[in-house]
């Protein structure tokens, strides 16, 4: 019985559709991770700046994403914002916006932590060489901080990949949604299709996330030696 269920995967264009869904998942995650990281570096710099007001604003921004569930953010931007401004936002675009903002907030915290963990005399010896603010960050602080923030950043990235599964709720047809559609159509004929489809999606997520954590281990090992 189990064996017959596996055929659901290859039936018709099911496999292709699943891969198409995976592509959307990966696309949202990848763009959000890249944008989030870039914005996150800026947020991190601001959070270590001298201005208390700026620091507070960025802290508040982070808390907004920590306190409010991502699902509510997705609903708010997808249903709430267009209503007020009388525009239509594509679900995938909303997903990219929300995940990028979330990534930036969390990445900002990781960057801040890494920068603050650097010994103070690194800043001073850089300054003593006459480096200006940007040179100090570019040549001295960020390269060192990158090594320290890598584990956290990779962890955040895999969390972002996984959380993209919420985009189903705003009508984006991602890999999970495609899976559901396939199951709905075949479940009566093939009661084990849930097992096979979700099992397959399980592996797909693993295939995306595993290289990420592998990469982080590799880089860590390389930098340690």
């Amino acid at each position, binding site marked *: 019985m189990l064996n017959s269920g596996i055929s659901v995967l290859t039936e018709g264009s099911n496999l292709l559709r699943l891969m198409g869904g995976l592509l959307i998942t990966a696309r949202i995650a990848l763009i959000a991770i890249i944008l989030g990281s870039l914005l996150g570096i800026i947020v991190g710099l601001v959070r270590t700046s001298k201005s208390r007001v700026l620091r507070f604003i960025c802290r508040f921004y982070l808390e907004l994403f920590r306190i409010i569930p991502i699902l509510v953010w997705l609903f708010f931007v997808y249903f709430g914002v267009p209503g007020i401004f009388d525009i239509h936002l594509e679900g995938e675009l909303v997903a990219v916006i929300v995940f990028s903002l979330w990534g930036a907030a969390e990445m900002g915290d990781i960057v801040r932590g890494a920068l603050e963990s650097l010994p103070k005399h690194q800043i001073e010896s850089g300054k*003593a060489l006459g480096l200006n603010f940007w040179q100090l960050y570019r040549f001295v602080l960020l390269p060192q901080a990158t090594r320290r923030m890598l584990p956290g950043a990779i962890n955040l990235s895999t969390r972002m990949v996984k959380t993209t599964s919420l985009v189903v709720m705003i009508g984006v047809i991602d890999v999970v949604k495609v899976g559901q559609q396939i199951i709905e159509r075949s479940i009566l004929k093939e009661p084990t299709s849930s097992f096979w489809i979700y099992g397959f999606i399980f592996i797909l997520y693993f295939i995306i996330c595993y290289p990420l954590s592998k990469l982080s281990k590799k880089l860590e090992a390389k930098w340690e030696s």
Partner: protein
Amino acid sequence: MKLNGRAKEAFIISTTKDQVLLEIQGLRKDYGTTTVLNDINLTIHKGEVVVILGPSGCGKSTLLRCLNGLEAIQGGEIRFAGKNLTGKNVHWQEYRQKIGMVFQNYDLFPHMSVIENILLGPLQVQKRPKKEVLEQAQQLLERVGLLNRKDAYPRELSGGQKQRIAIVRALCMNPEIMLFDEVTAALDPEMVREVLDVILGLAKQGMTMVIVTHEMGFAQAVADRIVFIDAGNICEIAKPAEFFANPQTERAQQFLNIFQF
């Protein structure tokens, strides 16, 4: 007047020994409501080696840090080569190239090799041609006996080697004055000598230096003048021979007694 090479060196040594390079007038430094340096007056001439002594926490390191703008001062004036370094609009990045500093903690950048550490300032800050800087860096490394470690990373070096590299890194900026902030305090005793020898060598070449140290023998050997600071005030300024043989103030006597067994 334009002079080159040797002629310039000879000219500087022969005529500028009493030219004022750094002038500190009425300097005051507060941390919150505590005053850590009070009414510091000190003039440093070109080619002079001034050693600052004093008990821990007396403010001697803070004074050095004020001299290259790592600490803001709350009163008084610092003048470097006639230029006022006081106030908010001082372009410290420019003056820090001329006021080199070496710290107590090995302050090399751990993610860069020795040579990258040394080239960073000259190439990025001073925008000098790489060929010229590289040549100078190699000469300096040769002089401190570490040319063979130029591609090593700081973690592969001993404390003494790291400090010698830190000195080379500062020297490669062609500073007019060097500040040394307890550069041997964190070193194992057997490595202190190799670092002090480098500084002694610099003194012989006529480098202007302000040195904070706890090595009394070294202070006596290298200094043109000793400045004794206690509780944020300069108590005594004297020639080393006089200071060590016959300190004028009671505080200085007490301080020197600590080093005798």
